[in-house]
């Protein structure tokens, strides 16, 4: 029987002094597996909405015997920096730094990267240049930056409509997170999913709409070097669109992710 204290994550800061990143390392509570899991969070306002789900994913992995590290990108959560200074390339570097930290803490060479929303896209991009990544889970990846900006713009409009008492905000801010021209440009052009590194044997894409052309196209690219790609419809609530105070957890999706990673364990 596990106790909650056994499931307590080990909080830590890592990385160089000027860009320290915050992470939580979840130790396996069952017989340990050979692979460690690195969880790449959602970003901006979606980070907060998905935090509980992200934590639960790490807990589920730990219960299944995997050491798991989740972390905050530069300028997000408890990590150093301001969101306005962040960039996609900086966040890809953060994934590489977190992967190194995950290997050291877990004493595993083999890694599975599991990302959510923009974190999924960044994980796929970063994994192409990382050694030892054998499996990749992309949960609701962002494949179209323009569509993401439209969606976030609509969310901001709904917020503005609810709060007519002239809430002051910067013109390019989305729900409290500055989104300057440079970052918008990166989102517009920098979200292509690359062909994976040869070591990546399996990829799971849990898409909001599995039949979208963008998803099929990304799946084809991901399969181009021989990885077995599974595309499924994510069977759960879109937590990144819920209010943060609701703290929803899509347990069915999380269980599916953990089971899928287990199926691919050597």
């Amino acid at each position, binding site marked *: 029987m596990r106790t*909650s204290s056994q499931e307590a994550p080990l909080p830590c800061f890592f990385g160089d002094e000027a860009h320290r990143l915050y992470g939580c390392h979840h130790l396996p509570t069952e017989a340990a597996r050979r692979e460690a899991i690195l969880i790449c969070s959602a970003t901006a306002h979606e980070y907060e909405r998905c935090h509980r789900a992200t934590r639960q994913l790490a807990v589920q992995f730990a219960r299944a015997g995997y050491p798991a590290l989740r972390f905050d990108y530069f300028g997000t959560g*408890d990590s150093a920096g301001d969101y306005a200074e962040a960039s996609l390339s900086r966040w890809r570097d953060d994934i590489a730094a977190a992967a190194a930290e995950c290997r050291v803490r877990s004493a595993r060479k083999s890694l599975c990267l599991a990302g959510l929303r923009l974190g999924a896209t960044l994980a796929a991009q970063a994994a192409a240049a990382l050694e030892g990544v054998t499996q990749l889970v992309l949960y609701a990846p962002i494949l179209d930056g323009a569509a993401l900006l439209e969606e976030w713009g609509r969310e901001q409009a709904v917020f503005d409509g609810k709060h007519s008492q002239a809430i002051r905000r910067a013109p390019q801010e989305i*729900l*409290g997170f500055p989104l300057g021209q440079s970052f918008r440009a990166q989102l517009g052009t920098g979200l292509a999913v690359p062909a994976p590194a040869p070591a990546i044997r399996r990829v799971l894409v849990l898409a909001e709409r599995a039949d979208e052309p963008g998803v099929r196209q990304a799946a084809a690219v991901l399969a181009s070097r021989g990885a077995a790609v599974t595309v499924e419809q994510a069977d759960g609530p879109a937590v990144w669109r819920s209010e*943060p105070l609701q703290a929803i957890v899509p347990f069915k999706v999380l269980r599916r992710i953990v089971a899928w990673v287990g199926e691919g364990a050597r």
Partner: protein
Amino acid sequence: MSEEPILLGEHGSLLGIHTPAAPVGAARNSRLAMVLFNAGLIHHVGPGRLYVKLARALAARGIAAVRVDFSGIGDSPPRPDHAPAHELGMREPREMLDDLERRGYDGFILGGVCSGAKHAALAAGDPRVKGLVLINQELAAADPEAAQQVSVQYYLRRSLRNPRAWRNLFAGKVNYGALFTALVGGARRLLARGGRRRHSPAELLLEELAPALGRATPALIVLSDRHAEVLRLFAADFAAAMQHHPSLRFESNCYADHLFTSTSAQAALVQQVCEWAEELARTRAHERTPAVAPALAAR
């Protein structure tokens, strides 16, 4: 700035991120730390990263801060002793302060947004609490009549100014039944009690904070969105409260929503809290100096 994770509480399972004070400013010798409690189920980073910004801004002014997660929230696991939730709101703040006291702090400013403010108010009786920052605490919640009155006023004022609300009204996109029930129900209740209140939110707040106010503990109460409506509706009561308790300070911000979502609203709040806390810490450091000075001189 070197932040560190710390584990607090009876079981060492409550996560806190400690932001030590920079060795600057008049507040640096205050041995005072601000403790920030979860806003509902939002983890210790705070809504829109507000607590991170506030903690770092305070530290840069010489005041330490710790943003914490209660059991089962954020990065703290559920308690192994399965204590009931209603007890935790009382026990866990005390356990946190015990541990922080062992780290060398001897005075605390408790604060938070929404339920974080409520937990800070509940813990205010602890003599180690030297200040309170209560942001958007539900002041009218304990009195259903006051809550109803505030809701009706808030939605009326908000809707009257909102072109979209008028469009929806005429386009049949509102729940007329609910609107009618709210307005008529409110009016009926008001007539039935002849315009007299049984309780005022100001009275309820004073009652809640009585142990702290008895020690003249300074409290900064910041209200925005519908919470600011409470301040407006019961302005006379709150003015009287401030007259009786000069350590109480109320601030309203009509440009912010409940969670201070926009960066400008956050920046204004951070500035406001920092200035208030710095003044408190400066006074405390000054009071402490005469006692410390002879000891140092004797060495």
